[in-house]
């Protein structure tokens, strides 16, 4: 990262000069004296800013934009963010820029979030909370898609299971799994919504209610292992090719299997546009 003069640091990060002197002393920041001025490492200033309770998403966006394309620096910044337990924005290896959780959701970056879940249990909890508070049905959809019962359960604190089943396609296609989870839940702790769940499922597909159960649990385990393992491998290959060939590759990964083809990975249209417009290093 760059080094900033005293004046630049104050302007860039919105400190008045007295405050900046206090911060340098308080944080024991290392600086260099050059003539009549001093040079401050920007990284230290960013770290300090990130730790402040009034540090806003907008502030972070400014930093993220400044370092957009420099994934190593962004990763460093994100680590600071994680260490300081501020989770409004997330950065995962392979992403070009840190993004707010809601934006990841809006852009359908479920894979990124889910890979992150696996690595950082703490982040997972926070993300679940953010999902639940802001977009319960999107959270439930993602939970159903990845068969993550904890995520669905968190979403149900903010919405009804009827709404989930009627609105979320993945919940409907995974009814067997949902029913299996509900049965397990009943064994451990009683919840108010269980009867509602069963009624909702019965309305959508009565056959599922009688046939699901343990089978749903088995499917869940298989799916998690196989899916995540393959997704992880694809992700690693993508990063290696990106690094080696110096271009950003599409992040969305779906395999199709049409006639006369091996199968294909679905591209994120936005990524391709970015490439064409030359925004990607």
């Amino acid at each position, binding site marked *: 990262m760059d080094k900033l003069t005293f004046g630049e640091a104050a302007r860039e990060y919105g400190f008045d000069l007295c405050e900046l002197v206090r911060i340098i002393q308080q944080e024991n920041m290392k600086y260099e004296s050059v003539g009549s001025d001093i040079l401050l490492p920007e990284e230290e200033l960013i770290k300090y800013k990130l730790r402040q309770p009034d540090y806003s998403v907008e502030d972070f966006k400014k930093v993220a934009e400044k370092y957009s394309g420099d994934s190593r620096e962004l990763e460093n910044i994100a680590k600071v963010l994680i260490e300081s337990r501020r989770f409004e924005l997330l950065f995962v290896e392979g992403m070009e820029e840190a993004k707010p959780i809601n934006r990841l*959701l*809006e*852009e*359908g970056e*479920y894979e990124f979030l889910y890979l992150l879940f696996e690595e950082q249990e703490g982040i997972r909890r926070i993300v679940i909370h953010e999902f639940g508070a802001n977009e319960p*049905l*999107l959270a439930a*959809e993602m939970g159903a898609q990845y068969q993550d019962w904890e995520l669905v359960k968190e979403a149900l604190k903010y919405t009804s299971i009827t*709404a989930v089943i*009627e*609105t*979320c*396609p*993945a919940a409907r*296609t995974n009814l067997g799994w949902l029913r299996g989870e509900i049965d397990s839940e009943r064994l451990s702790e009683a919840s108010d919504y269980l009867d509602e769940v069963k009624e909702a499922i019965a309305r959508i597909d009565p056959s599922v209610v009688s046939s699901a159960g343990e089978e749903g649990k088995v*499917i869940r385990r*298989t*799916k998690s292992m*196989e*899916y995540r*393992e*393959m997704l992880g*491998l*694809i992700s*690693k*290959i*993508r990063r*290696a*090719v990106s*690094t*080696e*060939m110096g*271009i950003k*590759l*599409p992040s*969305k990964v*779906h*395999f*199709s*299997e*049409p*006639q*006369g*083809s*091996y*199968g*294909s*990975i*679905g*591209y994120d249209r936005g990524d*391709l546009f970015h*490439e064409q417009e030359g925004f990607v290093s």
Partner: protein
Amino acid sequence: MSITLGCSQTLELRQEHRQSIELSQRLLQKLPEEFTNFLNIEKDEDRTLLKVCLPFLTLHEYSHPLQAKGLVYVPQVEELIVKIANMAQRDYHHNANEVGIDKSAMLLGPRIGHYSPVDMVRSHTAMMERIFRDYFTINKFTPEITFVARLYVEMKEHFMTEGVLPEHKAKLEQLMGLAEGRFPAEDFHTIVEQYGKVYAGTNLVGVNTGNPATETSHKFH
């Protein structure tokens, strides 16, 4: 029931209904495509085979954007002088380009330092096994001459790769035999000849692929 509701309650219900529709539409816009037409990892006929295919398949797909960025050179295929029955020109040209994309995948594996050429042949062979199973064993799809010619050319090339294990060579021979008998021999080999030139002429732009046969692999797990 609705008759007994007061005016404000009725409005409220309508509003909720509208919000519910809006949310459904929003969800549909945001959600990834449904997976009905995609490979189903859980239900695939042979998941082990699918996993072995994955490096080749992934590198094949990532070769497309590399080609679009000018990082993969695929030569134009020559036009055919003879007319081949049941062959669409569009398929002929499409699969010619795909031959180049496949070659790019084979070069990228060693290039990124994670797969040796022999690893890539193994992954490609698994892909071929999978396709031939779908076409000729479980009859999931109908074989098309340019697609099968493309696979044949590649298997023929890979058969010559130094270090390929005898069992993989045997598998390649078996699969090539399956491909050869499916179409009129003259037509098939006319296309194979043209695609062979595309395969030979394809390369990663500005990249020295070195001596692939001796490169060490660092596999992903």
